Each structure stands twice: as C-alpha cells, then as structure tokens.
C-alpha cells in the first residue's frame, strides 16, 4: 500500500478539486480528508457515514462556583487571560481562551477547578462512490490538532490494509503548521498544488522547505496556469531549480467551478475536457512513481 498527500499551503488553490478529480480516476484507493479544520472533500464525495467516533481534544478548565472562594490565585497564575471576574461577582473561565495547561487546577487551594477534554470533534468512516473515505469535523474554535490528522490517517491505513487497497490518498490541510506536518510524515509522495499568484508562490516555497526536511519525494501541479503567465514562469523556474517535477497543469476552466456546484468531480462533470485528460496523466505518472519509484516520461 502506498500513500500520497496532496498539499497547497494557502487555501483556495484548488487542492480539493484536484483531490476529487484524482479520486475519480484512482482505482482501489482509500480517501482521507486531512483538512479537519475546514473539511470540504465530503461535499463532492457525498459519503454515506458508517461509523462516527468522538475525538477527545484539548483540556478545557471550568470552575465549580459552589466551591470557589474567589481568592483569585488561579487568575494570577493564568498566562492566557482566560479567567475573568463576572460583573455580578465570582470567577469564570472563558473556554475559548483556555489553553488547557491545567495550572489553575493545580494551584486552586480548594479544588474548585476541574478540566475535561473537549468532546466537540468527530471523525467518520464512510463509503463513497469512489471507495472508502475517512473524514473529520472539528468543533468551531477548537485547537487545530495534528493528533486528529494522525487519527484519521491511521484509520485510513487500517482500512486500506483490510481491504487490500493499493493507495491511500490524503487531502492535506492548509498552512504549514502542525497539522500539515502530521499529514506528510511517513507518506510515499507529496503532490503540491500551486496557484500562480504571489502568495501562492510564497506559500509553496515554505512548503517545499517543510517537505524536503522529511526527505519525501515531492511533485507539483499548477492550477490556473494561464491567469498570469509571468508568475507561472517564475514558479516553473523555482520548481526546476529545486528538482521538482511538474506532473500536470490546469488552465482556468469554468468546468471546475460548475462541477463543484454540481457536487461532482471535474472528471465526472466534463469527462472529455482537457482538464480531465490532464488529471488522468497526473495520476498515471504518480501511480508509476509509487509502483516502480520513478516518473514516466519526465
């Protein structure tokens, strides 16, 4: 079984559209949405949920007002300004500001503070028309966690093993933080989706740095490459200098947005289009690399 992660740095570069398109051409694969903060892949995969699991998030402290003596020791220790006096008197903890360090719990002289793990996050095992699908939903305001990413990837790996799937395909999270790290460690290849904008290039550079530090083979895909040719060229130069092969590219194609509105992948929506042909090529090359360790025709 081989695992691929699709990443883009900045949001909105078309990562999910690319993943969905690959999902419709990849055979015998398990899909996994690593973007747990703002999951979107399920909108196109339209999954039928088979299992729902609660994910225990960060600790959140709260004060038992019956026991609290209003001494204020907790407030003076809190480094996050999460503990406040109520207008009508008494102390309370703002759960959105609480970092879950549990120091207040330890310093409270009367044991009025307890912490509980947030139960506001869920992950799901589903069936989709492309194959098994593992995805998650974080509660709003929850701490963005690499652990939830690890959890969904573990489950996807297990399913792949049990069903004899050849591939696990991860739709990666945006950014370059902890969850992006969790989504690339231990994968066999990363496909970087880049949109030729100043900020797209900027983010791509930071991601290349990150993926290289893990020595994971890295490939690129350029989306909307005809929007501004000058920056596309700059991106191509940057990728060549860094030995990153460009597996494919899309021009600006209204089929992509229309397919999204129709809740289909672009391959399903416009099977004869150049866009579809291009993504098929990308997957063929990726598959060849994963199977024999080199890229065909480049």
């Amino acid at each position, binding site marked *: 079984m081989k695992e691929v992660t699709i990443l883009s740095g900045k*949001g909105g*570069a078309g990562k999910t559209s690319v993943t969905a398109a690959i999902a419709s051409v990849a055979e015998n694969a398990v899909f996994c949405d690593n973007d747990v903060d703002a999951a*979107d892949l399920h909108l196109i995969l339209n999954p039928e949920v088979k299992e729902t699991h609660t994910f225990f998030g960060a600790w959140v402290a709260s004060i038992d007002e019956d026991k609290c003596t209003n001494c204020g020791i907790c407030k003076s220790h809190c480094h*996050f300004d999460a503990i406040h006096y109520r207008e009508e008197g008494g102390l309370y903890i703002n759960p*959105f500001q609480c970092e879950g*360090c549990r120091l207040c719990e330890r310093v409270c002289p009367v044991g009025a503070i307890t912490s509980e793990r947030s139960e506001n996050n869920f992950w799901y095992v589903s069936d989709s028309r492309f194959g098994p699908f593992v995805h998650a939903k974080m509660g709003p305001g929850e701490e963005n966690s690499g652990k939830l990413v690890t959890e969904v990837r573990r489950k996807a790996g297990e399913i792949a093993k049990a069903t004899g799937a050849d591939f696990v395909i991860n739709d990666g999270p945006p950014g370059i933080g902890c969850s992006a790290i969790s989504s690339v460690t231990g994968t066999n290849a990363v496909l970087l989706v880049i949109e030729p904008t100043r900020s797209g290039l900027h983010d791509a550079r930071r991601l290349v740095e990150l993926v290289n530090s893990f020595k994971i083979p890295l490939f690129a895909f350029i989306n909307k490459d005809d929007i501004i040719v000058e920056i596309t060229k700059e991106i191509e130069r940057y990728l060549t200098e860094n030995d990153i092969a460009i597996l494919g590219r899309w021009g600006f194609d209204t089929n992509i947005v229309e397919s999204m509105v129709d809740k289909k992948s672009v391959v399903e929506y416009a099977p004869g289009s150049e866009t579809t042909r291009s993504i098929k090529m990308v997957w063929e090359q990726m598959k060849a690399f994963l199977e024999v360790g080199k890229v065909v025709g480049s």
Partner: protein
Amino acid sequence: MSYRIAIASGKGGTGKTTVSVNLQNAIANQLTSAVLLADCDVEEPNDRIFFPDAKVASQTKVHQMVPEIDTDKCTFCRKCVEYCEFNAIVVLPPAGFAEVNASLCHSCGACSVACQDGAINEKPVPVGEITRMDTGVGGGLAEGNLKVGSAMQTLMIKELKKSITEDYDVVLYDAPPGTSCPVVETVADVDYVVLVTEPTPFGLNDLMLMVELLIDLDKPFGVVINKAGLGNRDIYEFLNEQNIDILAEIPFNKAYAGKYASGDLLTDIDPETTESYLNIVKSIEERYLQYEGSNYFKW
C-alpha cells in the same frame, strides 16, 4: 478607542485578503484616513504583497517566555515534566539531562510553579516579529509574522494587537483562515465581523461553520459574497433563511483575478467592483455612527 472590524472566512482562497486591502482603501477614500490594516494571518501574512512600494516604518521582535532548566540546581525530580501538559520537557535523571523544547512550549508557567529547587528560569525566545509599514493608504499596514513551526499563533496575534497603541478611527484585522483558535483570538475584541465567502458548496459549507462560531462568540457580522456569478444560489438561500445581512456582492471577472495574482489591486478597479466596496463602507458607516467611542460627527 478605535472601531475594530475583522475580515474573516472559514475557507482559504475566498478573497479575504483582497477584500481587506481594498476595503482599507475604500474606507480611506470615503470615510476616514485614520484607518489601519493589521494582518493577523501570522502564519502566512500576505497583505504586504499588495503594497510593493511599502516602506518599513518600524520592526519589533516578539518573544515568548520559555523556561530554561539549570542542571546544576535541578534535582531531576521530574515534577515539571508531570506539570507540563504539552510534553515540552524532557528529563533523563541518569544522564543528568533536562531540557525544554521551545517549539512545544506554550509558556503557561506551570513548570515554574512545579519546581521546588529554583532550577527554572524563564528566558525570552523570539517567535516572530511585528512590522509596521507606510503603504500610502490610510494609516498603513501592521503585520505579524510567526517563525515557521512555532505554535504561538495566539500570542503573536495578541502582541500584534497590543502594538497598535495609536488612536485610529477604524482598525481592520485580516483574520487567518479556518475556525480554530487563532481566528477566535482575532475576533475576540472586535466590534464587527465581515465574512467573505464565495457562492460555491465549499464556500457555503465553511460559511456555516463560521456563522456557528460567531453566534457562539456573540459577535455581530455581515457577509460579502465574492466571485458572485460563479457557482449557484444555495448561499443566498442560506443567508436569507438565517436573516444574515449581505453587505455586498463582488462580481467575478477573470481580468480581476489576474490583478490579484500579480498583487496589483488598488488601481483600475472596474466600476461594478468599486460600487461593491462603496456598499460595504456604507453598511459599516451606519454601524460606526452608532458606535459609542466614535467621534465621527464631521458630516
């Protein structure tokens, strides 16, 4: 006190940065020149890309207090390890090794309380910097830039806000994408939130998450529909059902997308788009007039 507005969106790529930059420009032209833009997307600050001629006015380093363990005083009792909820401390008694990993540390201060031997001292470790720039638009731009790999987004956002000590009429916060902690921190003290979305199923899905969060936080908000004309009508139905204000629609056009790509945004905007920003400014103006701290009686 300034009137504070956050520009947020659940999803990345909806045009939040474009709206922030243009909105500052529109406010500066129409309402007040004392308007500052603060880029709170500290992991990937992109606002400055739109001001190629910006001049850096000042730069300040932001530090996180990270504990350091003095191994001469340390008795290797591991109490600090037990107190640390973030697994940032490694103590190996036989090796005489005790160290704090700064990138895992949340600076909560628990280990200092735990240590009975006076072996822990907090030292400042740089986590990023705040840059103030003169952009030629209003009061300019304030940007927080976090070091790659640091987990201190909320600290950085807090410090960025604290660094704005001058009295502006309006301060705009360009929020990070998503609905997690850094977004909560950004909108925590604002008077109004402008949500930017696009009329696609992705846009709607993420907008719903964001609306849920803002209702939880009890913040007033309105929606700007960017790339109007693309996608479908579902988003309008949702907004209508929920009785949420549409501040403006910004039409999609490919030439405009090209301008975004090249970072060239503040000139040659087509009349329709200009009209959209005027509408946003008008809606904000109504709210601003009702704002207690406002000394806006010029008109």
